[in-house]
């Protein structure tokens, strides 16, 4: 008897308006849950990218020390000479997507240059030289970092493919003599270190902007 009364009450209460409101509430709640999940994934991906950036940055600092110590006399001088065709360590673009793309394209460019430095130093150093090992490590990690940036970008902007570099493929320097190679290597590494520092800063910024904004965008 009591149950019957309750059912009657339920039918009276569940008007179409109420039902619609309830469905909307559930939809909003579900959306919030998905957004929170995406925000968490964004943060995790960004955090992982940031950690790797810091690691490569730290290793690049050590790499420069190792590079200088392995180049013999006048190593400090090598690093003060300016060299053309080295990628700009600064990140360009206004929008986060543009800046992320800038990071990615710069990383690709630096990877090519670091790879060239490795090749040049292979001729200049003994195979067991720690410089070669560190150069290799930085090169590998840089490649990994580029992959992470790419993934992060695609996770943030799944409908925006990463555009090809504006200036075409990375321009590497022509054949150089040993002095030029040493100068070139030092400048590349030094610039790369600066670039990584900028990337780290950019990622920290993105952490507060992109992941939150992305959530808001999705919310809208």
């Amino acid at each position, binding site marked *: 008897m009591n149950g019957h009364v309750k059912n009657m009450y339920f039918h009276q209460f569940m008007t179409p308006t109420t039902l619609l409101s309830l469905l909307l509430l559930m939809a909003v709640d579900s959306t919030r849950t998905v957004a929170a999940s995406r925000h968490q994934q964004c943060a995790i991906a960004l955090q*992982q990218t940031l950690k*790797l950036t810091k690691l490569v940055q730290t*290793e690049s600092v050590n790499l420069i020390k190792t590079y200088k110590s392995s180049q013999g006399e006048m190593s400090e001088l090598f690093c003060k000479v300016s060299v053309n065709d080295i990628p700009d360590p600064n990140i360009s673009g206004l929008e986060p997507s543009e800046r992320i793309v800038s990071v990615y394209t710069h990383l690709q460019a630096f990877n090519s240059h670091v790879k060239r430095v490795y090749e040049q130093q292979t001729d200049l150093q003994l195979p067991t030289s720690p410089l070669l090992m560190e150069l290799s*490590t930085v090169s*590998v*990690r840089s490649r*990994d970092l580029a992959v992470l940036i790419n993934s992060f970008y695609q996770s943030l902007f799944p409908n925006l493919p990463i555009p090809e570099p504006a200036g075409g493929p990375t321009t590497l320097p022509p054949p150089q003599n040993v002095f030029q190679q040493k100068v070139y290597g030092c400048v590349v590494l030094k610039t790369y270190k600066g670039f990584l520092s900028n990337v780290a800063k950019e990622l920290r910024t993105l952490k507060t902007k992109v992941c939150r904004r992305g959530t808001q965008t999705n919310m809208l």
Partner: protein
Amino acid sequence: MVFARGLQLLVLASLTSVVVRCGAHSHLVIAPQSPVLEIGTNFTATCMIINRDEVTADDCYWNLSKTTVPKDQYTRVNRSALNVTIPITSETSEWLFCLCKDVSHYVALNKGKFIHGIWLEKGYRPTKPVNLSCEAVQEEKSIFKTITCEWDSSGSQSESVPTTYTLIVKKTSTDEIYNISTQLKRAELDLDTYPNHMNLDVWVTARNKLGTVESDHLIHDANYFVKPNPPSDVQILSENGFSTSLLINWIHPINKVYVELKYQIRFAPRGSHQWTYVPLMDTAKYIQSFRLQNLQPDTKYVIQVRCKNSVYDYGYWSDWSTNATNRTPEDRPTSKPDLWRIDEDNQQWQIISKDPVFSNGKIKSFEIRIESHRSKEWGSIPVNRSDADSSTGNREITFLKKMQIADDRSVKVYVNATNSVGKSPEGLLFIPAKAQVLAPVEDLKVWPEGGQLWVEWNAPKPMSVQEYVVEWVSGGWLDWQRENKSTRRTAIKGILEKFVCYNVSVYPIYSGWLGKPARTEAYLEQQAPLRGPNVKLKGDPGRNEAELVWEEIPLHSRGGFITNYTIHYSSGAETHNRKVPANITSYRLTGLSGGTKYDTWIEASTIRGSTNGSNHSFTTLKYAPGEIEGIVVGVSLGCLFVIVTIMLFCLYKKDVLKENFWPQIPNPGESTIGNWSPDYPLRAEPPKENCLSGISVLDVHMCDAKCVFEEDKTSLSLKKDKYLSEEHSSGIGGSSCMSSPRQSVSDSDEGGDMADTTSSTVQYSSVVASSGYKGQTPSSQPQQSIFSRSESTQPLLDSEENPDMMVQEGSRQFQHFARQPRFAECAGNEDTADFDRLRMEPQEANESLDFCPLEEDNEQIAPPDRLSAEWLPVKPASSYMPQLGGYRPQ
């Protein structure tokens, strides 16, 4: 079914074509070729006959190795194809042959073309690798590029179908794959550069000829697998003024950019084996220092630190760092000194104390105050304690004062311990007068359990106890511990030795006053005695018993409570034993055999075993004490009794004896021979007063040298009176009458004279014809001639007349008679007094007759003929015959 049949026919067709292409060397073909079979399944093979019509499937058969497969496992597919199904059970690879019988000459001549075989490889399908775990260790300042993985696989493998494992690591972002294959369940994979902060997908595939199976995938950040080095350069700082804290510093083993770490700290007082862990929530951070608090002052602590990835459940804990040690600063003692006493003899008490439990530093001195009756004493006892003493963890016992306390006096002792920082609270001990004994605890029990000695007691009923002191003493070593008033059971916390007897006491303390102790003995663990008791005899052994005595085994050699002694004693063949209680130290063995050597030893027993003591030997007496004396006394008494009896008998029966031994000799004076008057002129009668009437007592000293001397004298007198010949006779009768002036001569030629001489006296004499009379030594002439002549008026006895008859009569009489000649030799020189004495002592005379019986015997056993022969030179017959003739008229 239709599909299977179709597949089979397809296989056959393809095989046939292959065989035809190969030139048809064999007319039989088996399908499938070189199969790999899973153990536990059934395998079906088909044998096909090619290009021979005279051979059908019915003529074929299968051999598995050298064994023909039973027909019931065959299936005839068609006229030229035969199936066989065999179960795959063993791991051993083997051949399966298809053969044909000799159904034609062609088959018989070409056997090689009618056989075909396949090699069966058997194995197990690979099983899924489980429990995959990987670890990447730190090398120098980064993570080593090699990742090491391990996994389990429960499946079996056969030799012919081995399983190969492939470890695969994939960077999920870049799809770069690294892998390595192995047949072990562990592999190390080089990743060139360890991909920190990159996601890795790790899995293992197990592959063999029967299939491939893949493990579960581990998809994690690369740092999930990292095991860092332990923190380096761990240092502990002790700060003055902070006596209960230590500051720990260390260096991160790896840069944060690689792995962000969290830490864990553990510490323990030095010497302790119990680590205390700092709660992880306090240290699970990326920190390089930590302050330990609430430590004990002046205590050396050992500290270790370890680390792991700070992300929850990521990575592995590093090993613990090496020990870092430091001591907390000192503080003043915060607990009382543990005051106690040793009750020595003669009212001597030794006040002792342990350092306070929380001495918080090295104790420098004790300050003691003693209040007794109306007197008060103060003193300070300096303590010089080395670092080694305090580092052992044992609380040192300090002897504070030795004091004399009269039984009727109570004493209060107060003690403070002082270290370099300050003074402890006051410890006190009140010793009551002996008359004021305070109640002891009740029902004290002590027992070993779990390697400890446990003590249990009940509180004394009438009074409230402040605390208890459990004391244990062994071999001059004393220790104690305090228990609070609610304690009824506790374990002794000191270091106890096994097999040592401890005297355990529980003292109740009543407001500082020492109560009467309850006491018992206990062992932590017992063993058989180290040596047995030394047994010895108490006194001398008896004939059937011996009393053994032994000393108790010294306490340090007992090894446990002696449950009993067993006395063993052995006489060689058999060993006996007697079991006696442990409180017995002497025992009297009874039932022993006399004059027997016994070995005895004592076996002492505890609940853990027995040990024999030294061996002791003794010999029981052959006779019991007094037994010999008894026998001697008995025999002596018996002899005495016999002698007395004989003497009494002699006294009472002397007449009988006299008659027997000294028969009544007829008086010669009354003999008719007295009237006999020879032609020889009558001589004056010898005085009769010196002669006993009727009896002549003869005394014979056969061996007396005097006789010889007297004999010489006699011979001299004879020479004087009638020196003549051998036929001379001595005085008649051989009595003292012979010493009379009357010459008594017996001569065969002077028979008348003889008669005349003896006319007034009885003549009873022996005539000795001896060469001694010629001056020769009598002893050299043993031959003696005996002549007898009686002066009695009565006729001579037969025995006198016929000496041969005497020999035949009783020896006694013969002896008596035979001595008469000797008497005759000696008697002539005997004075009358001697004669009287002899007469009054017939017994003695009788004894003298027994003297030198051997000679007598010789004489006795001499045959009459011999005697006669010996007498021949003497010619007795010629001298005697006239006399015989003289008797006849009587």
